[in-house]
């Protein structure tokens, strides 16, 4: 089997695995929709007070909310992808078995996480987004090119998100217990991705800093492409640079970590 086909099979397998949890998916859709609803009303109140806040009009702000609900679990903005599983395998020492497999550890998990992300996009993302678009005044692009451009930004966001969480998971080689690290990742993910509030609403310096961090690739970047507020090529370069940097860092940490694996080989 060619290597490309191997990783494709891993991705498809994980897509199917997530697809079996139907009740959980329906529950997630419901919850994302309820939270979207609450957020939309608070955003509307905010934009009532300050029209054109952060350069968005009301319809754009509402669109931003629903895109956030669609991407929350797709891009695992607060965590909740492969990383808990990998952390558990590191803690128990099972990761030693993975290292003997004739597949690359990082690519293997990337493929599996991409499979998960695609399922979450279709299973949990589309319905809240469609609900939001039907129930509220939204600003959706009419040309398919912008939609496609946004989809590319989402794909790059998947890789950046994976890169962040791969480093997080590898921290288990040193920390063993991932509770603290997972919680930090959750906090950073929500705050720095724009899930809490669009990053262009953040005041002054703080706004500039959060926009330069990798998390802005997760929600702010695809949103600005969809809303026609950012040049797609520049956005891709930004996301791509972070993706490459994070994946390379993951490789480095991985090789440092695997030298320790003997110790944990329960």
């Amino acid at each position, binding site marked *: 089997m060619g290597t490309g086909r191997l990783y494709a099979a891993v991705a498809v397998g994980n897509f199917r695995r997530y697809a079996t949890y139907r009740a959980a998916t329906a*529950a997630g859709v*419901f919850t994302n929709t309820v939270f979207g*609803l*609450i957020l939309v009303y608070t955003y509307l109140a905010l934009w009532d*007070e300050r029209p054109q806040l952060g350069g968005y009009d009301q319809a754009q702000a509402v669109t931003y909310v629903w895109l956030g609900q669609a991407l929350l679990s797709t891009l695992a903005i607060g965590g909740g992808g492969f990383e808990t599983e990998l952390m558990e395998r590191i803690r128990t020492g099972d990761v030693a078995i993975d290292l003997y497999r004739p597949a690359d550890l990082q690519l293997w998990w990337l493929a599996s996480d991409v499979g998960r992300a695609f399922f979450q996009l279709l299973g949990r993302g589309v319905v809240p987004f469609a609900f939001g678009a039907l129930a509220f005044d939204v600003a959706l692009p009419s040309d398919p090119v912008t939609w496609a451009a946004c989809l590319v930004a989402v794909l790059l966001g998947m890789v950046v998100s994976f890169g962040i969480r791969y480093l997080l998971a590898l921290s288990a080689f040193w920390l063993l217990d991932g*509770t603290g690290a997972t919680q930090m990742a959750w906090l950073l993910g929500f705050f720095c991705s724009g899930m809490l509030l669009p990053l262009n609403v953040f005041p002054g310096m703080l706004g500039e800093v959060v926009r330069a961090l990798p998390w802005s690739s997760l929600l702010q970047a695809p949103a600005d492409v969809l809303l026609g507020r950012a040049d797609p090529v520049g956005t891709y370069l930004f996301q791509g640079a972070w993706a490459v940097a994070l994946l390379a860092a993951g490789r480095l940490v991985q090789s440092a970590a695997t030298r320790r694996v003997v110790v944990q080989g329960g």
Partner: protein
Amino acid sequence: MGETVRAARAGRVAEGLRVYGLIVVMWIKSTMAYRASFVMTTAGNFAATALDFVAILLMFSRVDALGGWTLPEIAFLYGLSGIAFGLADLAIGSMERLGRRVRDGTLDTLLVRPAPVLAQVAADRFALRRLGRVVQGALVLGFALAHLDIDWTPLKVLLMPVMLLSGAAIFSAVFIGGAAFQFVAQDASEVQNAFTYGGTTLLQYPPTVFGKELVRGVTFVLPLAFVNWLPASHILERPYPLDLPDWVAFTPPLVAVACCALAGLAWRAGLMSYRSTGS
């Protein structure tokens, strides 16, 4: 006859509370075996819940009012909702694990023990770190009280503890109702989050922010408005949502009792419908 039934019921409640207390003490002891870990997870819990107040602060860095309410007024709502929800979450937040227990069959272990199941499930993995949420809510409430110019009357002072406890009871009823639903739904525990975490998020903002239909829903269907919106409107002398009469601000205890009774019935129905996985 009626007397003995009542006595038996009272005995069962007392037994439930005793069992709950025992399990809680056991979990606290086990938590305290790893003190550093307890301190860190409590701080983490504090930080995680503080995040939505940070969002409100960020909003107020750009505006002076939201839905016509000022920052201290919204902090007042936030603190009340945070403490009420935090107390409920601390007391019985573990109930959201029920779906997993139904799925993997470990609920059976609790059923064969000679103690009320509800007490066992509620105390299961009691997490003292959830105090972080209560503390965070209390700090925000303190900030609000320091910045608000409230015209205190004895009635208003009395209303404060009453609304906090009633609010905690209303949220507890939501937790129990959600757990009862999981007997049927099994792996749909996230639905519960929409009402628990979603409910407390909703109450952090003034009712004027939301659509009339939504406000009606959380007043008459799922009576979350009684946790803080209505009593807080009385204390702050704000117009009531939906133009309700003045006296409704004092009804939270009644609403709480009614909610708990309904949740109890739902719980019993759920438990009756439980069929073990047999594994």
